């Protein structure tokens, strides 16, 4: 006979505002099998959990139902409490009367009725719960880091410094990411390259870091502690072991007119190239789409001039399988462009700013390249159209960001600060120039940030105009900026030589595809979702996968580095144990009923189904049945739904339990 305890939570007023919790407790208390029922203001608090533990011991409870929020929120909390009171944690279930009831209903009577039914269902269900033993699995103490920007570099170095091997995979031919493109960094104006490149070299020299550049994630299998990751190492056409990085191939390449994407297309590069002089590794790559040899078969100059004979036109993509126990995703960001978007796209371009067709209207990253000492102009601020120095420059903030009508409603967080920095860099380089900034709000929360912003106005003579720009158009060699100054309430028109747009931060292209490979979730903009916005900010809901940097949301360098170190710490926590405990919610095959059709194997997304031979005492084979490897099973239940002979059941979600729930209604 069950002795079930039911605990109804008020959740402050979140539940009790619409649900009469006392009535629910009283009503549920009369159900057969319920030995105890009560309500409490905050069941998850220490006194709340204490109440639960005391009741288990005093009332000799056999099962527990906590009626509160979503199990996603507190199932772990309550199962832990139940366990510490001496019950098996899987004899505790949660009834969700917050998200599924109080939050979505207004009528108190109806909501109370529904809450009683929800709790009643869980009471029937928990009666059928079985004791489940915890499963332990081994942990591969190696980690994969995806993305070699500052986030990936920091995470990789921290994990490797702890003595664990790291596989670092970068899509571009060099690590460094966007930070390598920046000129100087706020709020201290130290040179980005000077603080970045030593870290890049540390990565290259670290004995515990295995670096794959010009490589992408092809395929991911497995689960926390035991992932199998297939990396596609794209054909570089240059043998990394033979190449000395002398650079002769690049100087001799006859094709020199390819826009340099690292320089935001301001300069040109050859077909065999390293993205920038400080690249790590300093091994060139052949851009096969633009290489004359690959296009026409004629040329081959780079191979002829290469002393060590490193150039290899026959090289092919390689697929390498790496076993790892944890994955840090640090794929970073991309910038929104004002160009015309395809029809039906949820994100729109800026026709009123000329859809990106006015040459001297550039974005912030392009300005970074202009201001960078190693950039295409050697650090001089010059107009892309005619190479003249702009004497009137207009910066426009929130281009794409906080622009619901363009399809992006979030704040990109970094633009207020980098625009303030841009006005300073401009003032330092063009002494007789004037910078104007159109802004909505100046958002400067951060150590020394507001002081920095004020300095751009008070000492560096930037004129800040509160208001947005309605239009930009070319007039002769000037760009007319039409905006409003809402502080004064007048229309403003500025004839500018150059306009710099602080365009929105977006996730990297292909972020959604990678997320699907990894099995992690993302929001409507394709930023990756953390497990809990406040309390689990670097973990994914998928166990064993962690987030670092702007792939999770717009972030500046200090925040990115902090998050990367936090993700590394999480990986190290995982690696601190030799065996990993995991939830025993796994599928089990009823061998007597299994006919060996193996439909379950076809549908299993985890590859957990194996073959098992059933023999009689003499050793004669009777039949082959399915066996679910509990270490690999993800507990999704797809096999249970598929099995034609109803011979697979998921522990904790058996048909018996589900039917009992339905019958209670």
């Amino acid at each position, binding site marked *: 006979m069950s002795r079930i305890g039911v605990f109804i939570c008020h959740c402050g007023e979140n539940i009790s505002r619409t649900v009469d919790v006392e009535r629910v407790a009283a009503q549920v208390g009369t159900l057969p099998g319920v030995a105890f029922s009560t309500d409490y203001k905050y069941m998850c608090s220490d006194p709340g959990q204490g109440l639960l533990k005391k009741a288990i011991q005093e009332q000799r409870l056999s099962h527990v139902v906590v009626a509160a929020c979503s199990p996603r929120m507190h199932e772990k909390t309550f199962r832990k409490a139940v366990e510490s009171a001496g019950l098996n944690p899987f004899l505790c279930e949660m009834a969700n009367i917050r998200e599924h009831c109080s939050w979505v209903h207004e009528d108190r009577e109806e909501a109370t009725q529904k809450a009683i039914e929800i709790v009643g269902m869980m009471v029937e269900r928990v009666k059928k719960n079985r004791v489940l033993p915890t499963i332990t699995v081994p942990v591969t103490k190696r980690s994969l880091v995806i993305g070699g920007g500052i986030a990936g570099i920091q995470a990789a170095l921290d994990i490797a410094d702890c003595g664990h091997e790291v596989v670092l995979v970068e899509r571009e031919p060099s690590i460094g990411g966007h930070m390598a493109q920046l000129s100087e960094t706020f709020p201290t104006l130290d040179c980005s390259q000077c603080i970045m490149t030593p870290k890049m070299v540390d990565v290259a020299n670290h004995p515990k870091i295995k670096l794959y550049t010009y490589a992408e994630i092809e395929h991911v299998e497995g689960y926390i502690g035991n992932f199998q990751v297939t990396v596609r190492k794209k054909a570089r056409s240059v043998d990394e072991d033979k190449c000395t990085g002398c650079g002769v191939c690049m100087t001799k390449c006859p094709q020199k007119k390819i826009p340099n994407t690292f320089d935001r297309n301001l300069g040109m590069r050859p077909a065999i190239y390293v993205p920038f002089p400080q690249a790590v590794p300093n091994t060139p790559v052949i851009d096969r789409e633009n290489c004359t040899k690959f296009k026409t078969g004629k040329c081959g100059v780079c191979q002829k001039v290469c002393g060590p004979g490193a150039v290899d036109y026959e090289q092919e993509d390689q697929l390498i399988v790496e076993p790892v126990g944890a994955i840090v995703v640090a794929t970073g960001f991309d910038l929104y462009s004002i160009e*015309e978007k395809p029809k039906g796209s949820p994100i729109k371009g800026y*026709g*009123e700013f000329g859809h990106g067709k006015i040459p001297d209207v550039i974005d912030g990253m392009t300005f970074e390249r202009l201001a960078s000492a190693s950039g295409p102009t050697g650090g001089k601020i010059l107009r892309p159209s005619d190479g003249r120095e702009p004497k009137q420059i207009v910066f426009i903030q929130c281009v794409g960001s906080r622009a619901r*009508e363009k399809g992006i409603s979030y704040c990109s967080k970094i633009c207020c600060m980098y625009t303030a920095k841009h006005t300073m860099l401009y003032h330092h380089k063009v002494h007789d120039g004037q910078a104007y900034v159109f802004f909505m709000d100046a958002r400067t929360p951060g150590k020394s940030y507001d002081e920095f912003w004020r300095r751009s106005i008070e000492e560096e003579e930037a004129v800040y105009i509160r208001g947005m720009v309605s*239009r930009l158009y070319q007039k002769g060699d000037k760009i*007319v900026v039409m905006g409003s100054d809402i502080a004064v309430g007048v229309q403003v028109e500025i004839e500018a030589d150059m306009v710099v747009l602080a365009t929105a931060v977006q996730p990297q292209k292909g972020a959604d595809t990678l997320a699907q490979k990894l099995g992690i979730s993302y929001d409507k903009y394709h930023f990756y979702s953390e497990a809990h916005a406040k309390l689990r900010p670097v973990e994914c809901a998928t166990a064993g996968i962690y987030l670092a940097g702007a792939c999770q949301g717009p972030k500046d360098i200090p925040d990115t580095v902090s998050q990367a170190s936090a993700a590394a710490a999480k990986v190290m926590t995982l690696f601190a144990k030799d065996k990993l405990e995991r939830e025993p919610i796994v599928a089990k095959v009823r061998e007597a009923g299994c006919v060996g059709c193996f439909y379950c194997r076809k549908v299993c997304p985890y590859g957990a189904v194996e073959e098992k031979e059933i023999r009689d005492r003499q050793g004669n084979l009777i039949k082959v049945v399915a066996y679910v490897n509990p270490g690999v099973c993800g507990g999704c239940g797809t096999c249970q739904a598929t099995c034609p002979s109803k011979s697979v059941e998921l522990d904790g979600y058996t048909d018996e339990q589900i039917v009992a729930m339905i019958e209670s209604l």
Partner: protein
Amino acid sequence: MTPKKTLNYAYYPGCSLHASAGEYDLSTRELFKKLNIGLTEVPDWFCCGATPAHNVDELLSLSLCAKNLELAEQVEGDLAVACAACFSRLKTTQHVLSESDVKRRQVEKAIDAPVPLTGNVKHLLDILARDLGLEQLEQAVTKPLAGLKVACYYGCLLTRPTDVPNLDCVEAPTIMEDILKAAGAETVAWSHRMECCGANFTLSRPGVVIQLSHAILDSAKEAGADCIMVACPLCHGNLDIRQKEIEGVYNTEYAMPVFYITQLVGLATGLGADKLGLDALIVNPMPLLKEKQLL
């Protein structure tokens, strides 16, 4: 060769086309006759409320348009609208009422009839460029407007409000240019295609209109246009009727004819000046048309 479609529309001219913009009405009817597109005027239509109504009373403005939409149901075919303001108001009404049940019920009570929300409201530009199609239009051109440099002027209302499903890209439309290219004309790239002309401030704050319309005329001239083309009677009034006055205030000379789209496309299909109401234009277009040998 694609078979010729039979196109028939209910026609809502709007007040201006029965008054100051009579030439727009005349040229629309003649052009559509020439192109074999049927137009049947909505019986007993009345004012859409234009700009003033929705500034004063939302229910009134929605009800005026709703009643007209209801009247238009009597005539078969989508509703063809010539005036940019009528177009914007009728579309907006449909949009607002389909989004809000509360407002729809209020309006239905006011007009004592259900509001048709699914009927298509189409501007002439849409009919020419998409229903008839640029290819068909090109085939109907007998006298291409070769050598005529036109500044296509959209004004504010053709593509607005932005949240209402509309004619073309809100900020960078091309539909007028597409039509004129099919008619053989040359279109200029200019900066003030989408700027406001001052609209109905023409009576209450003429100074504002003179300033804004001056910027438009200036920009068209600077871009090398011979003339301006519009699809809105109010824009036409400000740019054409007030042009002499603007020239006086700014001590300059434009002599820039301002045509309705139906007049230019009409010319290209071989219609004569009398059928297009060219004599009603204040800035005399004849010298230009003669110079370009288009008459």
